[in-house]
């Protein structure tokens, strides 16, 4: 069995009356990458800071490896946690050169220089050791920050939106590099981002946060195809919801009957997730839908189709299927998608 590098239990933190992190439970296996995904203000950075020991939680525990570092009457200060962090703006020590930055966390004496050199070659910055931080490009600063955090061999490395300060074209390249470096170093990583593509790229597993809660933590594919909550469904990828009702072990919707994977009493209100590639449209004079918007996306057109009930759903079609607005269309559900649905409880109305 693989070892758990970080375990958070019921972690809760409020800033005054604002709840920042609420009852978060999570485990990260040694050597694996967890991406924490969520909109800004969802508490993901606070969660990271709780793990690093920069914030004291109101409740809950944090364990790094076997050791409880935050818990009942236990609070290990950040410098004793062996938790590395790379900040959004890198926070390089501007008064120290590259080598001194990387060597900062290493104990004096014992092959410190060797380790610095080792880290420099790991991040591909050999020869730049005497530069000052402001003499480096954004990507180089990023790699120094990474090398500095990795040098003392932390048990877990936290990255707080590390690519958000980079230009879009640089971003894709650096992100690949960083992933390679981290994998090579065998690091355990918790990575915070608001960018779904980045989360899927880096994370072995992805945790989606909303309003302080960890709504789902799973493989990227599962997050996308089997979202646990309507919020996850909408935040990760595009999703519309179709109202339905349970009738005779199936869901009756405007678009026909969909299979139900669990026993539910008749009359239960259901919301069915519809992604733009779930349905297909064809012009049809007596079709149920009518195109109300079309967006050219290059390879595809994204149509918004209004249903008889007035609800609209989005539908993605290949660019050779060009239909104008106001075209009446027939709607067909593509085979091969298991319908994802949520029971439409009143409590479930947090989402739009």
């Amino acid at each position, binding site marked *: 069995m693989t070892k758990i590098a970080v375990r958070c239990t019921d972690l809760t933190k409020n800033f005054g009356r604002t709840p920042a992190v609420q009852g978060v439970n999570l485990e990260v296996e040694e050597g694996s990458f967890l991406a924490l995904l969520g909109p800004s203000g969802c508490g993901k950075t606070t969660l990271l800071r709780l793990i690093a020991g920069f914030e004291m939680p109101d409740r809950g525990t944090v364990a790094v490896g076997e050791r409880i570092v935050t818990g009942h009457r236990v609070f290990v200060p950040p*410098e004793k946690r062996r938790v590395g962090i790379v900040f959004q703006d890198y926070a390089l020590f501007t008064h120290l050169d590259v080598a001194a930055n990387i060597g900062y966390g290493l104990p004096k004496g014992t092959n410190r220089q060797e380790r610095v050199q080792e880290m420099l070659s790991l991040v591909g910055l050999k020869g730049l050791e005497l530069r000052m931080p402001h003499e480096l490009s954004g990507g180089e600063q990023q790699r120094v920050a990474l090398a500095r955090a990795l040098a003392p061999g932390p048990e877990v490395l936290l990255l707080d939106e590390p690519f958000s300060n980079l230009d879009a074209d640089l971003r894709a390249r650096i992100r690949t590099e960083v992933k390679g470096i981290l994998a090579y170093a065998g690091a355990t990583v918790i990575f915070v981002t608001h960018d779904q593509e980045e989360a899927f790229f880096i994370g072995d597993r992805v945790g989606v946060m909303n309003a302080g809660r960890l709504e789902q933590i799973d493989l990227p594919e599962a997050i996308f195809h089997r979202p646990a909550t309507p919020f996850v469904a909408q935040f990760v990828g595009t999703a519309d919801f179709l109202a339905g009702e349970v009738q005779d072990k199936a869901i009756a919707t405007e678009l026909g009957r969909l299979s139900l994977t669990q026993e539910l009493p008749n009359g239960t209100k259901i919301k069915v997730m519809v992604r733009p590639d779930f349905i297909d449209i064809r012009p049809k004079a007596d079709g149920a839908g009518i195109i109300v918007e079309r967006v050219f996306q290059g390879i595809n057109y994204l149509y918004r189709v209004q249903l008889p009930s007035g609800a609209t759903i989005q539908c993605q079609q290949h660019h050779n299927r060009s239909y104008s607005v106001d075209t009446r269309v027939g709607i067909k559900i593509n085979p091969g998608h298991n319908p994802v649905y949520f029971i439409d409880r009143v409590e479930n109305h947090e989402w739009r």
Partner: protein
Amino acid sequence: MAVITGRTSNLIARLGRAGRGAHVSRPPAIIWLPATLVAVAVLLPLVYLVLRTLGVGGEIWELLFRARTFAILGRTVGLVIAVTGISIAISLPLAWLTARTDLPLQRMWSVLTVLPLVIPSYVAGFIVVAALGPRGMLQQLLAVPFGLERLPEIYGFPGATLTITMVTFPYVLITLQAAIRGLDPCLEEASRSLGHGPWDTFRRVTLPQLRPAIAAGALLVSLYTLHDFGAVSLLRYETFTWAIYLQYQTSFDRTAAAALSLILVVIAVVILFTEVRTRGRAQYHRSSVGGARPPACAQLGRWRWPAFGFCSLVVLLSLVMPMSILGYWLGRGVAAGEPFQVVWSSALNSGYVAALAALAIVVAALPVAILAVRYASRISSLLERATYIGFALPGIVIALALVFFGANYATPIYQTLGLLIFAYVILFLPQAIGAVRSSLLQVSPRVEEAARSLGSTSWQVLGRVTLPMIHRGILAGAALVFLTTLKELPATLILSPIGFKTLATSIWSATSEAFFARAAVPALLLILIASVPMAIIVTRERREQHD
């Protein structure tokens, strides 16, 4: 209080990033012509001083290398080091306590600890003499119960150090407070996550990050100490300024005074360059782009009240004690029937020249600052640097140079207010340029370009866009110049037209003859008037912090 310290941060800013958002085009004549005139004019006294000294020939070296010169040099450097060191030692904990901890009444302390800046050094000097001198208030207080006949000697080094530290430490405090507030908390957190505890982090990350601020504050304090004339003469500590004054008063040969002045200028230049050198290769700036979380507020715990006591002690010694002593002498003065009419006319004169100086200096500063910020080039930065000569030239030196110059070559303006105002311009121009410059840097050149694209000429842009946008910076610069002009002593003393008395000269003539009761009224009045520009500066600073 970026305004007060703006002049050094300005020096810092000039290194490295030359003219952010500079125009490519050449500056219009309306900008570069006055800027050049100002730069040339302020260099005049220095040129005169050098020529005058060199003109003497070989005997100048004899004059310079006397044992007495070295004694003066030793005393001056000793005083500068002591005052600067103590100021840093007081300010570092004060700044940290007021900016980063849960100290009770934090706001109040951060205002009160800055207020001693309104007390001129010669007023502080007479307060120290009156309180701690032989037959002073403390001795008389202790004489009855303890039969104390003598206190430890206050004249000389200890008194001068105490006096000048009392009124200059806020310079370090202000720069440090700003630097501590601007510190990126992520740096400290990064250090903690890399295995260094709080104390280690302070020593290895926080302190080095604060080093430029400490150096900038220390620069202001050491130059102030070097240039101070009032306190050292009242406390009879012979540094260069006092020696120059004595030389000027007692002998007809002005060459010795000129030679001593040159040494003083050289020391000032050395200090200026040391400050630049301490910065090294590092570049200090907050790396995050706004929105960073505020730094953690340290819980003082059981140190809360000792810290409170420390702040109270500093405020007691630097503010409450001086003001109460002044109040006491005011009472005695009133009881003794000191005449007040003279004081009112002095106050009017003081306000009048200070206002004139503020106006003249701001007008002179505008073209120089605009040229340096908007049309950065080698020449414009050279011009700007030339105007910083006031930094290196003590008031007494400028005054003497202008006296020689005026008496010999420009008799029509000799003994006029014009010459006095000109001296103020040379002395305080850097302060105004600093304030204008830093507010100009906050106006994006894109805004001016937008105005141009909407059909305004560069002249109209200046009047309708740039000046309105920086009017607060201009006001703050004017307030600062008004404040310093009001307090200025040696230039006022030497260059005032005969019979023209200001508060500063009234205080001086009363205290140098130990008529403390007579000095108390103008001193209190001066502090009162000085509080007005101080309040403008403080409120502006508050507003900026909250924006």
